[in-house]
């Protein structure tokens, strides 16, 4: 449950920030894509640190 929340939260937060950057810079979605990947990486890292042994 918490793990799933972290994964989704990571993607949504950094994907969302990337989307805002896209809007600001005027690109078509490259930053949203990068943000989602980075965010899910952060989510996985958080799961390992917080919930892992």
């Amino acid at each position, binding site marked *: 449950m918490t793990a799933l929340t972290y994964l*989704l939260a990571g993607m949504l937060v950094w994907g969302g920030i990337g989307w805002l950057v896209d809007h600001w810079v005027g690109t078509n979605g490259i930053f949203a894509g990068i943000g989602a990947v980075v965010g899910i990486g952060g989510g996985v*890292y958080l799961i390992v*640190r917080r919930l892992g042994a």
Partner: protein
Amino acid sequence: MIGQSTVLAAEFPPSVEDFYLPSILPWGAHDSYWFTKITFLVWLTVALIILFFLVAYRKPQLVPTKKQWLAESAYGFVRNNIAVEMIGPKGVAFAPYLTTLFLFIILNNFWGIVPLVQISPNSHIAFPAFLAIISYFMFIIVGIRHHGFVKYFKTALIPPAPWFILPLLIPIEFFSNFLVRPFSLAVRLFANMFAGHMLLLVFTLGGFAMINANVWFAPFSIVSWLMTIALTLLEFLVICLQAYVFTVLTASYVQGALADEH
């Protein structure tokens, strides 16, 4: 009584409108939602819980009577299997609130399958949302009182990680701990009760729609109504599960607020 007539009168493809029941009060009934079946059921739930516990504990016996046994096992279940299990020895302090929460939700959900009542107040998002807000403030306040303001938010927001990765992680922590939690609590309970009511409506009204369309469809109508009965049993499972899940998650958030950093 009220449910029966509205169900029979309802159109077949059920819509969100079916959740907004007419006012019970005869005066100013048009467009007035101040006192509907939903309101009535919530107050009835509150009254039933209060009365039941007052009656059950009026003359406590060493060898419990039937009512006392029921009340004690409801409280004992939440205290031992949810509060202490999730929070630890400190959980006993939260057992009264968690029991109230559990009973309030399960009874409110249960109206969804009581014959002739068959709508749960929790299928309106206002009630789950408010319960979620209470849980949300509770775990934050408990955390602040346990750790102190700064230290609580430090443990909640800053994971054990090297400094250069923290800017990446803190927004995720904030989002998942302080934004998603109340929202997911409320939506989970609301959506389950809403979908359950919708399912029962579809199969009941679908049966009527088919039999009205053509008498030869009567066997299908009967199958549809049998499905309603089967789904009512499924709903019973969902009702108990969702009340349990809401209480367990509240307890687990309180546990997270009380936990020391590791």
